[in-house]
């Protein structure tokens, strides 16, 4: 077992490369399958949503965080616990709207875009759009409807990556009586 100890940091890093490279292969495949960037963005968002609805279970099981009281607390948990746990980064939460329902997550570095360069003919591709879907799906499972999108992206020349999250409404739990 002792030889594994100095490998664990190595293998964690390798695992993140596996994830990053796999994501890259996925985006490449999607770009091949769909003609325009908008469609790829939509697919990434959908896939992210499907991942998010499952990831939240994993997150809640690992972190044993209780219910968040409000959106501010949610944002804190997302940036300090969730992002740290899964991507090893801690985005900063800033730019709150006056009503307290919209915020920005600023990511100094985005592990998904290691080794990535956007070619010129894909300028409207939101490469990391999966993240938006993941956040949307995960939060929907805890009764929050949010709208998530990228405001800035280092791949498109901005200095930082900024994700804008807007709280839409609390989803009421629907009891399965009556028709939908």
């Amino acid at each position, binding site marked *: 077992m002792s030889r594994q100890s100095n490998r664990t940091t190595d293998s964690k890093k390798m*695992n993140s490369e*596996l994830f990053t*490279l796999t994501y890259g292969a996925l985006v490449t*495949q999607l770009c091949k399958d769909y003609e325009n960037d908008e469609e790829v963005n939509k697919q990434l968002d959908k896939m992210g949503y499907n991942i998010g609805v499952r990831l939240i279970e994993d997150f809640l099981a690992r972190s044993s965080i209780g219910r968040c009281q409000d959106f501010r607390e949610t944002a804190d948990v997302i940036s300090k616990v969730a992002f740290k746990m899964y991507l090893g980064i801690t985005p900063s939460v800033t730019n709150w709207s006056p009503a307290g329902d919209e915020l920005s997550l600023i990511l100094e570095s985005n*592990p998904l875009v290691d080794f990535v360069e956007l070619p010129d003919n894909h300028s409207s591709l939101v490469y990391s759009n999966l993240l938006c879907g993941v956040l949307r799906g995960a939060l929907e499972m805890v009764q929050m409807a949010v709208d998530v999108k990228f405001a800035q992206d280092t791949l498109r020349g901005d200095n930082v990556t900024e994700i804008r999250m807007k709280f839409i409404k609390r989803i009421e739990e629907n009891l399965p009586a009556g028709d939908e």
Partner: protein
Amino acid sequence: MADDVLFEFLHMEMVSHIYKDQASRGEMEKDRATCVSTLEGMGFRVGQGLIERFTKDSPSFKDDLDVMKFICKDFWINVFRKQIDNLRTNHQGTYVLQDNKFALLTQFSNGKQYLEEAPKYLAYSCGLVRGALSNLGMDCVVTAEVSLMPSCESLLSSSSSSFIIYHHTTPNITDTTEMF
């Protein structure tokens, strides 16, 4: 430091997307084989990239067996968090790698349930191995076979999968138990 579970979720979603996409496009020519080869192709590119990162500081390999041992130990540990359990060869270019608890299949079942679905989830990994080997100078055909241990009481082998590697592209005489 992407958590291992992120890769698993992404992989699951990738497989599901590729198959859903094929079904919705309704093209008659596109069938399961195409989905499998799409996934395998993605794995191939990722495998090539990964192996370059893993081996950039290591000395070159003495011979093919050395390469296979590297794959079974270091590569498998880095990608699937454990070693290959058993390596067999006929010393004529065919290698069988056996993993008794393949990381991507452990969540499926502990016996024969869902056996037909397993190949979808092995395609990407086959591509990974084929890509890795190709960049190490070995041109191979990689297939995977899932054969579960008959006695489900023995807890140690949940899903037993073998990766069969034919070096030098020997014509694929054998059984039909492969990828589909």
